[in-house]
């Protein structure tokens, strides 16, 4: 099954990239606030049970995909 893991910096963790993009958008006149930049990880995970596949993706997050000091993730089975 297709799985999408979205990794974001935790609230409160400074995101200088997001800040820079926000300022760039302000430069074009867009009204925008709290721009945060994250990472999307798409993958194929064997299995047919969404709950089971999601559990596997969660284990991957804990082992490698997410650094819990600074990041949090949300998992979507597509």
């Amino acid at each position, binding site marked *: 099954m297709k799985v999408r893991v979205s990794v974001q910096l935790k609230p409160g963790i*400074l995101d200088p*990239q997001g800040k820079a993009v926000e300022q760039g958008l302000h430069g074009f006149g867009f009204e925008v606030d709290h721009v945060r930049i994250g990472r999307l990880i798409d993958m194929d995970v064997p299995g047919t049970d969404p709950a089971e596949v999601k559990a596997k993706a969660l284990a991957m997050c804990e082992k*490698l*995909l997410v650094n819990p*000091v600074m990041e949090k993730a949300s998992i979507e089975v597509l």
Partner: protein
Amino acid sequence: MRVAVPVFPGSNCDHDALHACGTVMGWDTIPVWHQETHLPENTDLVFVPGGFSYGDYLRCGAIAALAPIMADVKRHADRGGLVLGVCNGFQILCEAQLLPGALLRNESLRFIHTDVHLRVERMDLPFTRAMKAGEVFQVPIAHAEGNFTLDPADLVDLEARGGVAFRYCAPTGEIGAAHVPNGAMNGIAGIVNLQGNVLGMMPHPERAVDPKLGPTGGLGVFRSLAEAFAKA
């Protein structure tokens, strides 16, 4: 004294580490390819060098932390063996959970290469025992991700247990946000684990040890290690 220097694809300070430990200090210093599963026998110190291991993919140090050699580095640390991680080496030790915290992008978003001053916060470590209380030394930094970050509660714990080994400071030793090049919390440049045998730092002491190449502000760390081993 035997030093092992793990070498990952993308390491680029491994030869600085080999030069400082081998040529300058005269220690038996051995490069160890990341695919090896065991450190050389009787390794006293593991020097995890700087660079861009695995191209900094995913997060700096995240993939290197999973390399086969790191399992033995962990065993070495668990036995009380000394581990020094510099720059990317520090990031690898954090990702391997040998040290707490994480290194984020510099506040300025820029790669910074400059000389900095560090104040010694712990004088009782094998890495600092030849230094004096509050001693200030000058070493270079060269990194884009050196912004040390920790959960606020864990930061309080780290400070309370004396986990901070080095802090960025003015040449006079004064500390404060103005002297922190990368936005690191509390101006933290280097930390040690609870047992005091694993140290990670962003600045490069190994690049400031040879008078033929420039200033030698980093020698204090290596003299301390020499002293620690002479006594051991």
